[in-house]
């Protein structure tokens, strides 16, 4: 297990190699990159197998010392990190293989794969890191890679803007994360996550500090995991190449936040107030963005909002002490969402369309892609027996056990909404009439390099439900695996399961009614829909804040600097000297005896001072 670090190091090593020497490498560097992430994937199996025979463990090397504080690079091998290692490496591998064909005509092909490698490396490093310092380092690198990849087509103004928005928004959250880490360091004197958790559990840290720290950590998670009100960057992130969106939305970047909360879960548990905030914010985010997903018409945008909604759902799960449910949902969502995005990429690749208003009847033209896409959508909607269904129920159970009826009710509404928007996608895109004049002409299936990852992901999306009961190699369910010490079996609540199935079915029926039969429900909800379509004016509010508050304030500071500090302080003091000099120079009469008189007077005065004061 000591070599688990190679899982992160291999793609990291591939980055400079491919970035600098990509042109001369096999497959313009892509093969190197894929080999590296493949190695990580293999290592996941080796580490996993090895892990099952041993205890959780962590290893570290000193990065550098400062003032007696050891700043270390270390990794932790425990159920959570092994689990995440698997999800990240498999999705990254799939995305990279898919990109091979999807991106082949790009002039910056090597660069793309180089950054993909770095992205994977950072995310793997993030999930493996055993201390907050390395976690923050990789956390930021993940942000960087998303910046580079979203802005991959930087010649496009919108892509450049989206990249900037993603980086800045997550950076705002990172301020919180960094402060939180430092608060914890101040309280415990250590960056080591295990040490901090121990201190938190043993009550060494005052509960006030702990709550503040937990909330600050959560602020970081809000940024990365696009929780309200820092969710605005994620929908724009679709400006990047579609496989990038798949990677960001599924296995890297956005799940980092959820992972962080999970990793620091004992800290949150010790600060119940913070946990409550996590739950409520998650729920709020999920509901808000679910409504937005309902009204957006760009395929990738709908998927993006659904991602946020599901992330909120995961946060809700964690906030309801549903650790297993949250992490389980993370996995099923990752597979399904990667599948959906890659599928959307295939659709765009095959038809050149991105807006669902132009699509329709694709089922007939791209049956394979459609089938796979629909599988992903059903999984996310929570249709049994796909993965999403089980994880959703696990979350619902946690909510039921640990939250009040209001939250449970809202969660069920959320389940309805999420079934509704997925059903809407399915009905509008794949069924019904062809709404575009040209798409029918050249719609075609994607080449096999793109289909293989889709199939693999679909397989995972479908079968991941089984993990609840049986995880290969462990002989037990996911819950017991994740909770290494105190196993937690999958314990279904039958009435809840039936209720959720009914809700999903209702969602599909309603969607069928509205989008296939033309029910006039939407008309009544038009004001709300308009609000949702304008993204609840959140983007406008932020834009306004930046333009009218931040920039104006910056302008005022600069003006202050120029006028008060510079013109007033610096030039002013110079001016005073000049003015005084201008006055004083008339005292230079040029007559020697005037000077002499002053000298004489001064000598007399000095002499008097010396004699009298002696």
């Amino acid at each position: 297990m000591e070599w688990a670090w190679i899982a992160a190091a291999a793609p990291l090593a591939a980055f400079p190699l491919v970035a600098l020497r990509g042109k001369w490498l096999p497959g313009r560097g892509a093969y190197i990159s894929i080999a590296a992430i493949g190695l990580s994937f293999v290592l996941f199996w080796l580490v996993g197998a090895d892990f099952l025979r041993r205890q959780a463990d962590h290893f570290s090397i000193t990065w550098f010392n400062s003032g007696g504080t050891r700043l270390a690079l270390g990794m932790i091998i425990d159920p959570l990190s092994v689990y995440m290692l698997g999800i990240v490496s498999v999705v990254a591998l799939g995305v990279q293989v898919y990109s091979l064909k999807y991106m082949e005509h790009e002039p910056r092909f090597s660069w793309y794969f180089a950054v993909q490698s770095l992205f994977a490396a950072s995310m793997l490093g993030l999930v493996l890191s055993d201390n907050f310092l390395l976690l923050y380092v990789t956390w930021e690198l993940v942000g960087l890679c998303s910046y580079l990849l979203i802005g991959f087509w930087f010649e496009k103004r919108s892509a450049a803007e989206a990249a900037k928005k993603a980086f800045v928004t997550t950076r705002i959250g990172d301020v919180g994360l960094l402060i939180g880490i430092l608060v914890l360091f101040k309280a415990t004197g250590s960056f080591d996550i295990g040490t901090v958790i121990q201190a938190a559990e043993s009550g060494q840290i005052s509960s006030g500090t702990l709550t503040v720290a937990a909330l600050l950590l959560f602020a970081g998670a809000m940024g990365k995991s696009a929780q309200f009100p820092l969710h605005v960057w994620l929908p724009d992130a679709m400006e990047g190449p579609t496989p990038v969106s798949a990677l960001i939305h599924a296995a890297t970047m956005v799940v980092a936040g959820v992972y962080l909360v999970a990793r620091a879960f004992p800290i949150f548990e010790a600060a119940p107030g913070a946990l409550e905030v996590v739950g409520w914010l998650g729920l709020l985010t999920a509901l808000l963005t679910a409504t937005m997903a309902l009204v957006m018409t760009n395929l990738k945008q709908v998927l993006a909002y659904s991602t946020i909604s599901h992330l909120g759902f995961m946060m809700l799960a964690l906030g309801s002490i549903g650790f297993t449910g949250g992490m389980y949902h993370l996995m099923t969502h990752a597979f399904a969402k990667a599948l959906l995005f890659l599928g959307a990429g295939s659709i765009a690749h095959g038809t050149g369309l991105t807006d669902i208003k132009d699509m329709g009847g694709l089922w007939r033209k791209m049956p394979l892609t459609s089938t796979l896409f629909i599988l992903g959508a059903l999984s996310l909607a929570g249709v049994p027996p796909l993965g999403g269904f089980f994880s959703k129920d696990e979350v619902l159970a946690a909510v039921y056990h640990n939250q009040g009826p209001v939250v449970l009710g809202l969660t069920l509404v959320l389940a309805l909404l999420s079934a509704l928007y997925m059903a809407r996608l399915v009905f509008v895109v794949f069924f019904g009439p062809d709404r575009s004049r040209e798409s029918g002409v050249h719609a075609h299936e994607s080449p096999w390099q793109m289909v293989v990852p889709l199939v693999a992901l679909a397989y995972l999306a479908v079968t991941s439900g089984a993990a609840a009961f049986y995880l290969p190699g462990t002989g037990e369910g996911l819950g017991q695996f994740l909770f290494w010490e105190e196993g937690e079996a999958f314990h279904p609540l039958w009435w809840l399961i039936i209720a959720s199935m009914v809700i999903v079915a209702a969602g599909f029926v309603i969607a069928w009614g509205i989008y296939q039969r033309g029910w006039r429900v939407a008309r009544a909800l038009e004001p709300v829909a308009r609000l949702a379509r304008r993204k609840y004016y959140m983007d406008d509010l932020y834009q306004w804040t930046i333009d009218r508050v931040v920039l104006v304030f910056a302008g005022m500071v600069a003006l202050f600097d120029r006028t008060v500090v510079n013109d007033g302080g610096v030039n002013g003091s110079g001016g005073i000297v000049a003015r005084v000099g201008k006055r004083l120079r008339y005292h230079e009469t040029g007559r020697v005896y005037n000077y002499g008189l002053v000298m004489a007077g001064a000598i007399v005065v000095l002499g008097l001072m010396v004699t009298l004061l002696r």
Partner: protein
Amino acid sequence: MLSVLVLVPVLVAGLLVALPSGRLRALRSLALGAGIVELALALYVFLSYDSNLGGYQLVERYRWLDSLGVSFHLGVDGVSAPLVLLNGIVLFTGVIISWHMKPRPKDFFILFFTLASGVFGTFVALDLFFLFFFYELAVLPMYLLIGVWGSSSDFGTFIRTKEYGALKLTLVLVAGSVLVWVGLLAMYVEAGVGSFDLLDLEAAGMSVGVQRFLFPFFMLGFGVLAGLWPFHTWSPDGHVAAPTAVSMVHAGVLMKLGAYGLLRVGISLLPEGAHAWAPVLIVLGTVNVVYGAMSAMAQKDLKYVVGYSSVSHMGYVLMGLATLTVVGMDGAVLQMFSHGIMTALFFALVGIVYERAHVRDITVFEGLAKRMGLTSAFFVVAGLTSLGLPGLSGFVAEFLVFVGVFQTYPVLGVLAIIGAAITAVYILRLLGKVFFGPLNPKWEKLPDATPREGFAAAVLVATIVFVGVNPGFLMRAIDSGVQALATRL
């Protein structure tokens, strides 16, 4: 070895004086040779510094003015060794960048190397008289370098001529030096050991009252050169007016002289004074960080953005020093190094763009990355360093400063971290505006950096990445130096 390091640039300047001004090739080879020699020497000095041993090493001492207790005493400790290396790197790349310096290349290099000598001297002097002497030697050539070879900016309502920049810089810095000099003399008298030698003064010690009285002289005097708010305006104006290589050395190294002096003279000789004044310094440092970042956001001139970002980043150095904790000061010293390399890179790149486009107005640029891929890539790296991205040198430094500040003044730490976020905003806005987006057809013909320029920038980028990935390379020395220093606090 250290005296060679300090004297070679002056000797080269002397040789250049003798060189006929028409012989460009000889001039350049001499300058480049000197740059390489200095880089090698600086590297040697740094590598031969044994951080396990600690203390002052490579010490040289020649008697000079016994009656006043002045001797030519040189040596490096863990704090100055990395800064010597920094100056070696910046000097070397600065020479490469100013390869085609016009007009009067000979005079330019004469002054440039004089400046370099002053900077090296300040870092290695262990005698306060010579420390001050070299400090002045480093400041004064700036006046001519900016006034003669600089460039003016004209934004209609906002005009700054190079003469104004040069004058302001020199006057403000000299005003600072006056404070320093008064402080030094007062310290010389008060310590009562009749010596300007740093080690003697360290051993002498002064009463608490005297230390508290004297510390502000150094805090303000050296602080001015470090860009301490509100005495910072010379710095953006000076940087903007200066020619590329001078901006590099100036923002890269010269501003560090201030912080270095504050640490070496102020904090280490007047620990009680430092304790008394640290709250003031750290508040001003925080103002530097946030205020500099806000100002940078509002700038339209590419160089002004970088100039104000320097003000902001030097704020971290001041904050780190003001924590008076080992971690914080470690971070401050590392930030000096990191910021030096980063700003040098920034100014080199801005110079490359300016040389080709002849404007620096951010609003007229768009999509340069398409034509100037290499320049843009380097610029992005510089920008990312500036906003504290892990894996690049700035992060480790800022992180340590934050750790230090959190141990002493958590609220200010929060503000500083917010300042870092503001940095991200303006840097990313700048990158997005200037380099990304569709290419403005006006810049269709803009050539990318030449291999020579690219090499210089690559050296700096490599340093940034190397230090960012392996900060232990510098931290071992810095930590040993700072720890030795902190025992006096």
